[in-house]
């Protein structure tokens, strides 16, 4: 709803209340509150974390968006800013942190590594993007993204929040009994085991001879 529509709702406002009362939709006020106070988790992975701090500092000043309150505890944060290379050794920790965050929660993949592995994609200890495990809301390109790019990404996230409707969001969906975005924590075995793919992995790793026998 545009601002003009909001200011002329189509019915009469008593003169003593004019200019003091605004009529708006519930979604709009709900989203306005959320988008203006996104609390990111104080969580830095690699190089991008430094640009994240720089974006919090005086020149770029993320406080303009209500995002300066960095919380070291996942229980108090709304936003997981994955700022750097996700390694196999670290990904169980990241998934656990994500699961511990209360709804509503968002994930931003900052930089090339978090988005898709970046320059380190071929490495044996590197996960090719956090989206292999977590649902990502905004991807920010760059290596590392400049603070301006990070701010642009945050504005994109605000736009996304603005478009959400309380009738449809997953965290108020009654049919959705369990936590719908819970991700099983991957296990460090001989290599990283994604528990959602156990059957698939078993099939793919099955010995070749056994396959031939079953075909015969």
């Amino acid at each position: 709803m545009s601002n003009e529509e909001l200011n002329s709702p189509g019915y009469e406002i008593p003169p003593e209340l004019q200019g003091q009362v605004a009529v708006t939709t519930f979604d709009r006020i709900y989203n306005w509150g959320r988008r203006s106070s996104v609390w990111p988790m104080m969580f830095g992975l690699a190089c991008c974390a430094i640009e994240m701090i720089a974006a919090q500092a005086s020149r770029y000043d993320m406080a303009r968006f209500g995002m300066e309150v960095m919380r070291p505890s996942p229980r108090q944060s709304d936003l997981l800013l994955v700022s750097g290379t996700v390694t196999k050794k670290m990904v169980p920790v990241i998934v656990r942190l994500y699961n511990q965050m209360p709804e509503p929660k968002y994930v931003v993949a900052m930089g090339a590594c978090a988005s898709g592995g970046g320059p380190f994609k071929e490495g044996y200890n590197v996960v090719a993007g956090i989206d292999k495990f977590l649902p990502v809301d905004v991807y920010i390109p760059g290596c590392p993204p400049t603070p301006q790019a990070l701010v642009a990404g945050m504005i994109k996230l605000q736009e996304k929040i603005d478009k959400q409707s309380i009738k449809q969001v997953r965290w108020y969906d009654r049919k959705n009994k369990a936590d719908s975005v819970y991700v099983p924590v991957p296990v460090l075995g001989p290599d990283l085991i994604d528990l959602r793919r156990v059957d698939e992995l078993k099939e793919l790793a099955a010995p070749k001879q056994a396959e031939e026998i079953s075909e015969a």
Partner: protein
Amino acid sequence: MATPTLTETLDLSAKFPGAVTADARPGYTGWIVEAGKLLEVAAFLRDEMGYDLLSSVTGVDYLPDEKMEVVYQAYKTTGGPGIFFKVQAPRLDPIEVPSVVPIWPGADLQEREIWDLYGVKFTGHPDLRRILTWEGFSGHPMRKDWKEAFYEEDAKPFKSRWPEGRIKMAEERNPFGDNVTFDEGFDPEKWTSNDPEEALYTSLKKYTAETSDGIKTDHILVNMGPQHPSTHGVFRAVVILDGETVVSLKPVMGYLHRNHEKIGERNTFLQNMPYTDRLDYFNSMSNNWGYALAVEKLMGVAVPERAEYIRVIMAELSRIQNHLIWTGMMLNDLGAYFTPALYAFEERELILDIFEAVAGSRMMCNYFRFGGLARDLPEGTLEKIKDLVFDRLAAKVDEFDRLLTENEILVARLKGISKLSPEDAVAYSMTGPVLRAAGVPYDIRRAEPYGIYDRFDFDVVTQTDGDMYARYLVRLEEMRQSLRILRQAIAGLPEGPIITGKPQYQVRVPAGEAYGRIEAPKGELGYYVISNGKPNPWRYHVRAPSFINLTALEKMCVGGKIADFVAILGTIDIVLGELDR
């Protein structure tokens, strides 16, 4: 400013006939030591010859010769060139080499790294566990015959990308559709894990005691990190506490192990340059320099005067912003949440503006080339540098000094805590401000000058207490000394070319080995590069100061309070990109 040089020639093969031979491979230097005599030779070098600082230990896999080599680089803290010696072992399982930890405790974490990545068993090592990967990881990834899941070819440029550019997603090439491989017949359901943490927890000293009243007290085990606001990233420490006192502590790392070295061996020489930026991501300019030095040594290429001066200017600006940020972050750790850091970031932005102007990127400069620099200073940049150096930064350093040095809380938290004696600091291979704070005047810019540092007038800053306050004072004064060097460098900056010859994508590097080391803001940053004449390095090893300075972490923390651990970690000045590589 005489540099201590040693004219004596050391003939180890005469001293240890039969056990030590000179390394005669073309392009190589140093000595090859019999594994059985290693400890004897090492003790001789340390005690009789004065090579007291073991700079770096690393493994090299000579797969075609069926040999595994462990390379040691030792230096004298009084200055001068170092000595390389190597132990070769046949490439059979198990590969065994005696541990030098009894002689140089600083080899502790490095030997664990070689065990993890190369599978060399160090006999006599007190705590040989995996360090960068996890217990249970399959194989030793740096071996030449170990292939990663997204393996494409041994060396870049890959045929799929150049010249035709028929690229296939790495996920499509891999049977598991992801960056993982499992042995044939692997069943994730039947697979039982031995807890990867178990070895770690058993390695800690447990604490139990009984009070005079017969009450039994037990230890508390605390995991700090990898997600903890004080650990400067994804570092983790496991601590055993008696009340608030630290009884035992183990650092756990590898949470940002990005396989720099494995990727570096696939890359061409020049392709590694942008990767060095991402090691210590505060100081990409100094990282570039160390790598450029190593490869320039191999290529035998000289650097033009103007480039040398610009290199000094960039490296010293980088040091100033590193120490500024360090001060801010250190105060964060002490509880002065973010106010000092904001002061630091203000100045850092101005220095980054200069880096952006010369290199095109704020943080990842990728500015150095073999034999020079990528670009000359753009118009107007020198004036900006002059403004900063002659005017603004000196005043800001004084402001930090005025605000912090005599601050009661800062002094109370830092003074007299985590003392490290000069003997211990050298034995644990500490370098950089931590070593100088312990009273050892060892600065590579003076001990073995690289570039044109022998032309500048500056003091090697030392303190005698070896505590955290001394480390703070050293860094504060180092910023002033950096400004002093900068003033001289700006005054002496000549006109001229900035690179020898034409810039090239593919450099020809003769076979051989080279170790390039610089005094990075965090300590000695070294690159050990081996070329076999091909376009890619056979070995690319980074001697990371953040990593090796952590060897003494347990020594510095045990007996202190848990709250001080946070500050001690802060004063070492670690950066995770370099620590885990």
